[in-house]
């Protein structure tokens, strides 16, 4: 790691003031600290936001679940409220990384880091999420813009994220055999007015599989998307999974997610 100074502000205004130049917010650090260790990124100042009470908490209404940015994956996984309101979201959190990563990693950190293989981005898209920052409200469809890049401005801090409660939802993840991140992760959410499908692991950032959404909107059944192959020319490829294979997995996993919705 390159040299840095570390701040742990006690209040939100202090935190926002501390961020200048190339300073970064530090949530759980499970992605950021790793990248900094490998000197893939650097920051002369880290602002640890783990003490900010404004970033904590889980609340549920009839239509939405709102989760504080500093909520750890383990907390989401074990939250009875979330398990009841959006079980697929709790299950997604339970499948992130491993128990140790889940004790530290956070929802806000994961979304801000925008790893192309992270699970939460697919949920944000599928559950029509909105990201509440200190400056504005951002809808899921506008949030991810490029590889490891969101539309957040420097110094802008995610405070909470809201997910719309679906009629049914499921998340199926095919783990990358080495990294155990999502090689392909598909989040299917069914609403009264249609279906949303968030896909991660396949492109430089998570995206909505609109073709699959339309077909499932017409008929919410696995056979509605049988044989569908999304175009793969812009999909990621590595030694473990080429682009075409990822495309095939999207359809397979989407169908399995639909099956899971129907059987629960």
């Amino acid at each position, binding site marked *: 790691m390159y040299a840095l100074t570390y701040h742990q502000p006690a209040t939100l205004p202090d935190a926002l003031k501390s961020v200048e130049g190339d300073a970064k917010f530090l949530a759980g650090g499970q992605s950021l600290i790793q990248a900094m260790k490998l000197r893939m990124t650097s920051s002369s100042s880290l602002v640890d936001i783990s003490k900010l009470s404004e970033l904590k908490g889980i609340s549920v209404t009839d239509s939405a679940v709102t989760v504080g940015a500093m909520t750890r994956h383990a907390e989401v996984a074990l939250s009875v409220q979330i398990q009841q309101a959006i079980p697929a979201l709790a299950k997604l959190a339970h499948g992130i990384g491993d128990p140790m990563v889940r004790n530290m990693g956070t929802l806000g950190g994961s979304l801000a880091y925008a790893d192309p293989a992270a699970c939460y981005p697919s949920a944000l898209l599928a559950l029509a999420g909105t990201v509440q920052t200190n400056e504005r409200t951002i809808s899921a469809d506008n949030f991810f813009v490029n590889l490891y890049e969101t539309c957040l401005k420097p110094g802008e801090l995610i405070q909470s994220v809201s997910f719309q409660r679906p009629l049914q939802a499921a998340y199926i993840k095919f783990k990358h*055999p*080495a990294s155990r991140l999502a090689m392909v992760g598909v989040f299917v959410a069914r609403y009264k007015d249609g279906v949303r499908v968030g896909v991660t692991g396949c492109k430089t950032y998570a995206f909505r599989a609109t073709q699959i959404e339309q077909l499932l909107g017409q008929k919410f059944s696995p056979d509605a998307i049988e044989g569908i192959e999304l175009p793969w020319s812009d999909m990621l490829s*590595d030694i*473990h*999974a080429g682009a075409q294979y990822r495309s095939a997995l999207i359809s397979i996993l989407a169908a399995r997610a639909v099956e899971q919705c129907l059987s629960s």
Partner: protein
Amino acid sequence: MTNYGIGQSVSRFEDPRLLRGKGCFVDDVNQLGQAHALMVRSPHSNARIRNINLEQALKAPGVLAIYTGEDVARDGLGTMKVNLPRKRPDGSPMFTRQHQGLSKSFVRYVGDPVALVIAENLLQAKDAAELIDIDYEPLPSVTDTAQAALPGAPAVWEECPDNISHVFEAGNAKATEEAFSKATHIVKRRYVISRVYAHYMQPRGVLAKYDEGDERYTIWADVQYPHRVRNALAENIFKIPEHRIRVIANDVGGGFGTKGWQYPEHRLMPWAARKLGRPVKWTCDRSEAILADEHARDNISEAEIALDAEGRILGLRVKTLANVGAYISSDRNLLSTFVNVHTLSGVYDIAAAHVHVTVLMSNTNSTAPYRGAGRPESIYVMERLLDDAARELNMDRVRIREINLIKPTAMPYLNPFGAKYDCGDFVRGMEIALKSAHYASFEERRKEALGRGKLRGIGIANAIERAASPNQHEFAEIRFNPSGSATVLMGTKAQGQGHETLYKQIVNERLGIDPGQVKFIDGDTDLVAFGMGTNGSRSTVVGGTALWKAADRIIDKGKKIAAHMLEASVDDIQFNKGVFEVVGTDKKVTLKDVAKTAFLAVKLPAGFEGGFYETATFVPAADTWPNGCHVCEVEIDAQTGEVKVVEYLVVDDVGTMINPAGVKGQIHGGVAQGLGQALMEQVVYERESGQLLTGSFMDYAMPRANDLPHIRVENNAVPTLLNPMGAKGAGEAGTVGAIPAIMNAVIDALAPAGVKSIDMPATSEKIWQALRQAKEKTTLSS
């Protein structure tokens, strides 16, 4: 009273220390005033070094020195040597190039070390390394085995344009030719064995210091052969008397062969420590480990068997291309290509066989023995051929094995490569395995799985391997002290195999000493007189027998002392469970009493030499031949291609087991490494650039707990007469059978869908592609 003797699954004595975090691994050791070293490595797979500019780097804060290949050459550091008398195809001498420690004029693989930065701390060393300006001229490179053999492929070394180091043959070409001419059927296939890397959980490290007063180097390193390291550094590298070097290997966090003994860091750190006048510590990062360490396996075989009308094998012929990397520094880098080809015929009665190995160089890391060291590769060829032949000839896979298995009455059996199997009952082993695996009802399970969308397959592999070879001595010493407790010093080196426990069990068995009264020492060349270290599944057999013999000598001397103490004739003394007694009386003394007496001159007869310490140096008369039948079932997701191993059974013959729990643990671990290679592990280079694509655990897939099934191990022991314990080597057994068993199961699962073959690793994408292609073929033809 706990029974500690041979055959007891005693809880390990080394465990409490390791469990409490009180282990002593090389990174746990520190010396006052130590500086930190960083190796700078080539990012290119093949390149000329035009210039190395250290100007900015030397000015960086905390930098104490930066050394390059120029410094190594100037100080006259030597290199290892190749001794094997091999030849190239045209009869000219073999081509090898030794690694110089730090490469000077060119680099030949990604990771080839070119500079050594020493700074006050590691961060400063990293910062300084980034300021080193190396002007490389990249050259075309070749990393792929098949490609390296093609005419016109880039040459690793300009002086050797065809990349062939040498060739090696074993068996009888003429007899094999004749056998093939008489064949009713010939089954021929091409099998690829991937390149993998050991990835022990503890990455390597070296801490070295030079004592000016003593004129001695002390080197702490996680090596498997500490005495050989000392010898190599003394004779080959520094050319100094061997007593001026001390090598210490305390706890080693996994070795598997790859930690062996000949890494550049073992010579560079002590060299730098002396130049700087300060201890120097080097710790390898995980991402550096695959660049710094020796890789494993990597060959392609064209293999064929000649069969008669009944399916009996008349002959076996194999031509292999083995990729050993760019540098061949010593015989070690070639061992896996030839030392175990003799088990290509496996446990089958084959009259004629021949293997021809072409050893190729490529722009990759050197290779070295890794769990099996050629044994899994050999058994893989035979067991794949049998399954492929069974399918081709429409025979049952068990039947083709049954009719070709060497019968127990044929022992000792001389195989067509000249290897002599002393004992073993392969027929019974397979019988037990098939019964225990419920082989007979497999097709029902296959059908049931299909209903769940899974393709289920079963794989069998009969493994045999040479273990505990008669080419290396081993040393044991039992040293009593005046108060009657003892120290056992062994020339082997544990890396997790539980040596402390099994050796204490042998001592308990022979001398009746409570393990609490015994201290175990290995790994320190100042304390242990001699040793060849641990490799090739040898420690229990060769080390254990040396220990047994040392115990015999203790008993012999003890009898003389006891006779004097009991005023009897030596011939009337018998020793049993720690007690010397006069036959037919109740006069007795304990071993402890005898030991104490041995140090009291006044209590000994005049002219009798006191002291109570005995050594033994033992070399076996012949190899042992552990063997086993592995049966494995997999389920493949028909849509995604994902493979899960759902059942795994080994029925093993490792002779007498000193500590059955320990032996089974070795087999479990070996199976896991076999599963890793079969399903997910691989060292991968980008074809054009030679860039390493599997640089960390993010890309190199490692088996986790949920990748492994419950592994069952059952016993088919046929104790050998080759050592007093009846033990056969066991350390590598799991891997030798697992790679073929799992691959056979995968192919069996896919065969009904029309897939003929898959190469390892059997990744989900490979299987998905194979299923698609098979489906397209069926659609086209229907």
